């Protein structure tokens, strides 16, 4: 089963609260990629455009170096996101979270996230135990 990484796993790693590389090494099988929903990739790219030039360049280099596998948000993901939002009827879960969840569900994966508060409310979504 494919593993998708949420942006908060990066945040925890950068803060020294979670060993993201260690988790990848111990939980991903030989040759198995870590996947990123396009919505998460958008979030990780923010600094490239919001920061001053030197830091932005460093961030840009980092993101190009890691050559991660980004799963596009497609028509079927959009349909699933709409369904999830309608079923949950929750106003405190944003559009972006529904997009992330829909991507993971549609592609038959599980999500590495620390925002269990939001995502545990979606029964069809499988979460990684961390």
């Amino acid at each position, binding site marked *: 089963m494919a593993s998708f990484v949420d942006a908060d796993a*990066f945040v925890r790693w*950068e803060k020294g609260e979670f060993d993201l590389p260690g988790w990848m090494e111990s939980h991903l099988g*030989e040759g198995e990629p870590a996947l990123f929903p396009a919505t998460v990739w958008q979030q990780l790219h923010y600094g490239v455009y919001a920061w001053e030039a030197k830091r932005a360049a460093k961030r840009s280099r980092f993101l190009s170096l890691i*050559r991660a596998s980004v799963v596009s948000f497609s028509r079927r993901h959009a349909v699933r996101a709409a369904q999830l939002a309608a079923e949950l009827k929750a106003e405190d879960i944003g559009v972006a979270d529904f997009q992330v969840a829909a991507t993971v569900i549609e592609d038959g994966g599980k999500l590495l996230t620390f*925002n269990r508060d939001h995502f545990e409310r979606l029964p069809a979504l499988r979460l990684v135990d961390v």
Partner: protein
Amino acid sequence: MKTVTMTMRGCPEAVHEALKRSAKVNRRSLNQETISWLERQAAEVPMNGRELAQRLREFNKGLTVKERLELAESIEEAGRRMGRG
């Protein structure tokens, strides 16, 4: 650049038609267009999770604690702007 010859069988008609349309738009031969599509897809093949883990570690060695915290804050700020916070 070294090249090889590939033969394709069983290509769905719809894909063939799409390739032909795309080749016409881009003013390329069908062969050139097919290679262009394959090259784009090949660039998307990711490194596996273990390689990625190694890259992450190597890259972060060059960052100070302050820079790492700024990175984290930037991702969090983006999340808030996207309604994820």
